[in-house]
């Protein structure tokens, strides 16, 4: 429960979220969303919720990124905004 880690992680999380929504290439946006999930996992672990961190690492940074990449493979990779 070190507060300075908390503050740094929170600010990084907001930056990553905004960046992943602004990238026009969808694969890069998906990977940035994966980074977002990893940072969330660190934040949960720092706040003392290790079960939630474990689940977020397995699900958010693993399986969810794979689903998004699979869908982008079957549709287009470019987005207009």
């Amino acid at each position, binding site marked *: *429960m070190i*507060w300075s880690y*908390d*503050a740094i992680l*929170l*600010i990084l*999380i*907001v930056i990553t*979220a*905004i960046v*992943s*929504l602004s990238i026009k290439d*969808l694969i890069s*946006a*998906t990977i940035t*969303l994966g980074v*977002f*999930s990893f940072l*969330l996992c660190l*934040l*949960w*672990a720092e*706040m*003392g*919720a*290790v*079960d*939630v961190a474990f*689940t*977020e690492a397995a*699900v*958010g940074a693993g*399986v*969810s990124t794979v*689903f*998004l990449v*699979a*869908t*982008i493979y*079957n*549709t*287009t990779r470019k*987005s*207009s*905004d």
Partner: protein
Amino acid sequence: MDLQTLLVSKLNYWIFVILMIVGIWAIMSKNNLIKKIMGLAIFQAAVILFYVSLASKEHGTDIPIYPHDLIHPEHHGEVDHHVEEDSAKAHGAYEKHETAHHEEEHVKHSDDHDAHAEKDAHHDTHGDHQEAAHGVAHHDAHAPIADSINADDFNNPLPHVLMLTAIVVGVATLGVGLSLIQRVYRIYGSIEENEILEAIQNASDDGLTLQPEEEAAAQQE
């Protein structure tokens, strides 16, 4: 109050609101369907941040699990005692278990009556009647520890439980949303919202008619 105290006490909640607004804005105003789904995922993460922030305590431990010496407080001295004695005999690591419960189970499961008799002799030779009595007592009823726990030392486990299932269900619904996007792409040819709306306007004259499945399969071959 000064800035430091204000920040410490409220930063989590402010960031939660900011993330939620980023997510809602993305769902409303992004043109690409996949970006909308990403906004939904960010919104979901913000709500989970809120619940987990509610559950943390200043001096709480890192893990919501009871520490080992709180659960088995009496066995520590006896473990060391038996470790020294057992290494002389060739009992192997199995007898050196910390809980008498496991020792009892091992004794029950082993068909070796000699080992059983030797174990009793082992107890008697060392005069450690407390171990045998405690072993039986541990199997039947353990000493309740509810009074020795200060609730401020542990994080609140209840929101963690709710958020655990929320994450897994969230990824399942993400899968449903993505499959809908694939279907929309196959029919309309794009995943940009404005192009889809135009295609709907143009297609309303032709319409989409249903066909029996064999004819559709024959058409594709």
